[in-house]
């Protein structure tokens, strides 16, 4: 009974705190709501007329939605990069950042699920996938594995921060014996969600561009670069706008993680490019299409040739400690790295998988306005959720939000 009362207090207090704020905060939330409404309108169009309102066709049957889904799984997995040093290696530095990281993971996972649902042809029969009521094709279908690991990860990343914040809200100290085991599981789980998502593509013998043993490891490397890069940017914003103190030391440590992951990612990219172009086979055609275009079809060239230089530039800049420790350079690097990996892991990965088609047909894909609208709407939803979570967490952590008996 006592617990329910506290929970009620927490909900009411956090509702209060998230609906109050500066003018800038209200503008930000209003802006996100507006984008979400546009996204909902676009999705309503899609429900009404079917997926034909998107740019996808029988030739390229996955597009912007699945691209963003793939990328965001990586962002969600990256929260582990903060959890591990804090809870497992007992590095106190990260303690403040970790709640932010986990909040980011929750927002990213909800966006992932939203993107998958947006991509479904029949969202009204999604209950067919619920184990027990429907038919869950486990363990044959990698998609069912993905459903399990993503929802499991979501559960872990909601419960751990919730427990910590719930204790802090009452002014108590969270018991490490309760949350550390969960944190350790989540470390392995994060690797799991990204590997399983990679296996989703890697296991298809029909698509040589994906059917590649390096895909899984490269997913991990790029995720651990892009995810923490986003966390650094978010921490920078939080530092600027709230009373929440984040030490320079913390950001520098995360920057180190970004740097190493970006370097590994670049090595793997180089290895892939070498394999495709040193002795090109019939299976290298997708890579040719991606990097140089095939038979005059070159829709992806501007994308990939934006991503590659940004990726290389960011990695080189980050490699030098002097530049990395200059926060202005660091933020710039994180930003361009994030963009570069979003292109590479999204568009640059999903679309060429379908081009050329199974019989060599080259049909290009361009997302439509409706598709872009839904995508922006889902990103706005993610930002909205994250803002609410972060605001509550920060206020509890800074002691402004406490249970009043």
């Amino acid at each position: 009974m006592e617990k329910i009362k506290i929970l009620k207090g927490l909900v009411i207090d956090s509702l209060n705190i998230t609906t109050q704020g500066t003018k800038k905060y209200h503008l930000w939330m209003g802006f996100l709501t507006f984008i979400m409404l546009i996204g909902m309108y676009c999705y309503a169009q899609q429900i009404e007329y079917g997926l034909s309102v998107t740019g996808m066709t029988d030739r390229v049957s996955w597009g912007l939605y699945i691209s963003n889904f793939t990328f965001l799984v990586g962002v969600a997995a990256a929260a582990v990069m903060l959890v591990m040093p804090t809870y497992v290696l007992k590095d106190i530095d990260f303690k403040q950042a970790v709640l932010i990281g986990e909040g980011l993971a929750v927002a990213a996972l909800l966006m992932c699920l939203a993107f998958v649902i947006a991509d479904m042809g029949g969202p009204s029969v999604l209950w067919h996938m619920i184990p027990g009521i429907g038919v869950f094709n486990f363990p044959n279908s990698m998609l069912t594995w993905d459903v399990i690991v993503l929802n499991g990860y979501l559960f872990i990343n909601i419960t751990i921060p919730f427990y910590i914040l719930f204790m802090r809200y009452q002014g108590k100290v969270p018991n490490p014996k309760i949350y550390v085991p969960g944190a350790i599981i989540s470390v392995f789980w994060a690797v799991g969600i990204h590997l399983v998502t990679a296996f989703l593509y890697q296991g298809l013998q029909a698509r040589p561009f994906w059917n590649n043993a390096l895909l899984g490891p490269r997913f991990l490397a790029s995720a651990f670069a892009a995810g923490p890069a986003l966390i650094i940017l978010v921490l920078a914003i939080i530092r600027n706008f709230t009373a929440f103190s984040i030490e320079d030391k913390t950001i520098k440590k995360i920057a180190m993680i970004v740097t190493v992951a970006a370097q590994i990612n670049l090595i793997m990219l180089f290895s892939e490019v070498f394999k495709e172009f040193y002795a090109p086979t019939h299976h290298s055609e997708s890579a040719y299409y991606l990097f140089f275009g095939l038979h005059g079809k070159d829709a992806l060239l501007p994308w990939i040739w934006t991503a590659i230089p940004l990726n290389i530039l960011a990695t080189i800049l980050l490699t030098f400690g002097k530049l990395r420790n200059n926060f202005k350079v660091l933020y710039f690097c994180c930003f361009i790295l994030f963009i570069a990996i979003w292109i590479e892991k999204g568009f640059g990965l999903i679309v060429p998988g379908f081009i050329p088609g199974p019989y060599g047909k080259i049909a290009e894909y361009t997302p439509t306005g409706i598709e872009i609208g839904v995508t922006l709407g889902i990103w706005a939803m993610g930002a909205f959720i994250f803002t609410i979570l972060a605001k509550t967490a920060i206020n509890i952590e800074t002691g402004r939000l406490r249970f009043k008996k």
Partner: protein
Amino acid sequence: MSNNSKKWFSLNLSNTKTQVHNTSCKCGKSLGKCGDHSEENQGNDKVDTEDHKDGFDQVFEVQMNRRTAFKKLTASLLIGAGAVTTSCSVISDDKSKEKAQIDWEEQFKGNYKLMTDEEKKNTVDRLVRSYQLRTGKTINMTSENAEENVLFGYAFNISKCNGYMDCVNACVEENNQDRNSQMQYIRIHEMEEGKGFKFDEADDNYYHEVPAEGHFYMGTQCFHCDNPPCVDVCPVQATWQEEDGIVVIDYDWCVGCRYCMAACPYDGRRFNWSTPEVPEDEVNKNQHYLGNRMRKKGVMEKCTFCVQRSRKGKNPACVDACPTGARIFGNLLDPNSTIRWVLENKKVFRLKEDLGTEPKFWYFMD
């Protein structure tokens, strides 16, 4: 299945040393090919031993003896709920109430693969009635199961095909494919002679007189693989291989994730990007639940070897429509079938054999 360590059923048609397990198909002497047939049956046993549970039954039903009780409970629950949804509306007449109830029951029915024959019949009746209520026309829909000792296979004579595309037109008409998006299951690839099979340089969308000089033609469609990658990846088992080897889709169970489409190496699958439209007078009213019945938007479909025809002993529409006789269809387990003659006497090959998909679709030349 325990003594069969293979993940898929292999046709193994060229293996002359296969033991003859039994003579149930009366062809024990013909190069031992019937061994494969009994292997096929073993595979099928697995399907049979699975409990046939439907929809919510799949949750409630644990014991066989409680089965009927629960089924009735579920049915009455559904009917009751359907009645509640419609009874709220005072102005609606009996017909729209019936329609609403059918829609309700259809929305919450189970996977066709797991239905009993009675449940299959019920859903077919509902669909027929629903079509009647909506259009006033009566269709003839069946739910025939696969026959025993039948395994369908297909052969394509590259020398004979002239690219007339009669097969494509017949297929579209037979299978009620969406006319708006011009969906076609069959693609005819026009290739240049002297270059071999260069699919990437082939044209599968030509609009000129055929046969064009210096070209030859090759058709592709769903190959009904014996080890279909599309079936494994489906998260809800909305697509599976029937006992007669046809890979089918339950259009009502499909959630439209298009994972199977990504997994198919043969471009065999099509998606309904919008609501499919067929002019009322062009609708083929002889339908099968797994075959050419009307689809809805957001679900997959594909060639079913015209299951509504082939299970009645007829050829698929494309075979009958071909003016040159390039298409051959038949029962691989029948030693006297034309398809078996082709496989035994012609030098046949299949596409992308290195992927291990074991298509039941062979090409050959005169």
